């Protein structure tokens, strides 16, 4: 059983939701990423989403754009990102790690070589600019190496596309909560619920909701209708604020995530709806 599947099954048994935490690898410096990853899991993160920095992150807002710029200033390459996951796995063999990024760095590395290198270390890949129409080749390679291909779904995704995507997807689905870029705050819970109901008609796969979830309150609002929430820009903002002051960064990140995790674990309304 894959780490992702095991993670969701265990949470489901306890009637709990997953907390997925995003950071950009190499931000503020490649030597800090491992420590931040451990801080994420210490604070209750169930799945780590590790961003592969890219020079042109067209789906990201200013917070993650700047994180990419900081990581690239220190030359963080895909090879470095894989190296960080390798180190992480020396002490953590259970927390799923999903790489999230854009196609070009992977394509230049070589899709097959990438899959072979990360097999067993990385559990899933989200390629923001690789919709199902363009992803079939990469997805079949990932499958060969037991890596889940995780797809985005959006408010604009039609029933027909939901079906096509759920047919191809594995691991979990990532629902983008609004039309926009990461870090914006315009989440509308009613429309998220309605769309997730629509997606549920096509699949039993776990559904994560991301974009616009920045604190315990927003997490609680959407958690009722999905299996996982993704927190990204809120964490990256803390890293941006404290830079390489690791004690300050990790303590503030942990307190944000603990608050969110507590809200997810202990809020009656969430568990009842699920």
């Amino acid at each position, binding site marked *: 059983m894959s780490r992702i599947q095991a993670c969701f099954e265990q949470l489901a048994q306890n009637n709990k939701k997953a907390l997925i935490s995003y950071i950009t690898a190499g931000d503020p410096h490649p030597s800090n990423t491992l420590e931040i990853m451990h801080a994420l899991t210490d604070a209750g993160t169930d799945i780590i989403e590790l961003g592969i920095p890219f020079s042109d992150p*067209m*789906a990201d*807002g200013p917070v993650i754009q700047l994180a990419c710029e900081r990581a690239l200033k220190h030359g963080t390459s895909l090879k470095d990102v894989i190296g960080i996951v390798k180190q992480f796995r020396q002490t953590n063999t259970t927390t799923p790690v999903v790489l999230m990024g854009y196609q070009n760095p992977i394509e230049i590395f070589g899709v097959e070589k990438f899959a072979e290198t990360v097999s067993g270390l990385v559990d899933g890949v989200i390629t923001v600019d690789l919709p199902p129409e363009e992803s079939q080749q990469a997805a079949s390679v990932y499958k060969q190496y037991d890596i889940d291909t995780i797809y985005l779904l*959006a408010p604009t995704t039609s029933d027909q*596309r939901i079906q096509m995507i759920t047919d191809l997807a594995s691991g979990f689905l990532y629902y*983008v909560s609004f039309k926009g870029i990461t870090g914006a705050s315009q989440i509308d819970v009613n429309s998220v619920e309605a769309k997730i109901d629509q997606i549920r008609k096509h699949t039993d796969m776990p559904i994560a909701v991301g974009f616009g979830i920045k604190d315990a309150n927003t997490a609680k609002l959407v958690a009722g209708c999905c299996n996982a929430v993704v927190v990204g820009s809120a964490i990256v903002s803390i890293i941006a604020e404290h830079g390489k002051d690791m004690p300050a960064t990790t303590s503030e990140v942990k307190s944000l995530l603990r608050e969110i995790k507590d809200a997810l674990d202990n809020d009656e309304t969430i568990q009842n709806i699920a």
Partner: protein
Amino acid sequence: MSANVKENVMNAAIMPDERGHFGVYGGRFVAETLMTPLQELEAEYAASKVDPSFQKEFDDDLAHYVGRPSPLYFAQRLTKLWGGAKVYLKREDLNHTGAHKINNTIGQALLAKRMGKTRIIAETGAGQHGVASATIAARLGLECVVYMGADDIQRQAPNVYRMRLLGAKVVPVTSGSRTLKDALNEALRDWVTNVDNTFYIIGTVAGPHPYPLLVRDFQTVIGREAREQSLDQTGKLPDALVACVGGGSNAIGLFHPFLPDAEVKKYGVEAGGDGVETGRHSAPLNAGSPGVLHGNRTYLMEDNNGQIIETHSISAGLDYPGVGPEHSWLKDEGSVEYVTVTDDEALAAFHQLTRIEGIIPALESSHAVAYTQKLAKTMDKEQTIIVNLSGRGDKDINTVARIEGIEL
């Protein structure tokens, strides 16, 4: 005609495929949120293509608003000076707003109107596409926002003011390299946020499908006219075509109607900057490698880790690390030869055309003129070359003056 060439010609006619691929290039590499809007645009464009009223409105606007057909002008003095093939200029610089860009913005704005969109956005490098978008927005009464790299805003001040006069909001982009590629990223971010009421007018034959297709179709008026004018004026097809290539819309516009004519040689001129060997240039077809950026797979300027690298050109309009996917395909197929011209050579051509023919060319178009000089000398006097004079140079006089140490 060899079997191989024949096959290429047949392929050219059916490119791109139904998913927007030109061979391995092109496609639709965007976040899921944009997939449905792109499919809607594709469907609307397909419907408008077979709608005579749409075509009529487009043709009428090109005739009466843009001032088409643009002349095909025999540059007699230049031809004599260079001492080789006869040089003809396709005068896109005489279009309303001073460049070929308006052909495309009119087509896309008519699509926006058809789709009921009330707001248009655009990216711009040199400012010509921004001006053309602001112009058509003013005429149709649409809100217009133009994204422009903060550095480009500095070097293209007159065009920034023109856009503002036309009622557009010009938004400086300070992320990344603060030039055209970053303006494109920012426009895509705006579009994904405001997709319900907003139409994104992409200025070149790049971006996700169907943009490379529809921009090409709107620009092929250049080549169709040139073909007819050549037959009228010289009794034959030209022997060679020359156009500058940044994203490549003026070049595709000129070349595409001649793709079935293998005997007409086609030359796309990339910006060689300080020289391709220095690494400071904008010539992905000559010195780049295939990758994925801005919604399509194409030749890119990138490092070994797949990060997009900064480009350099004297001309803001050519200062872009990618190129339209159809050009990548045409390069691999060998139907078009892609060459480079340095900043210095382009600048010399800028002055030469200005002094010999009384035409001030855009720095972008000056690259095509510079290569034409080299080419003309290798051809005989009975042969003809059509060079696409894609824009006029008024916008560049500050840049040229600065380089020559003159304060205006």
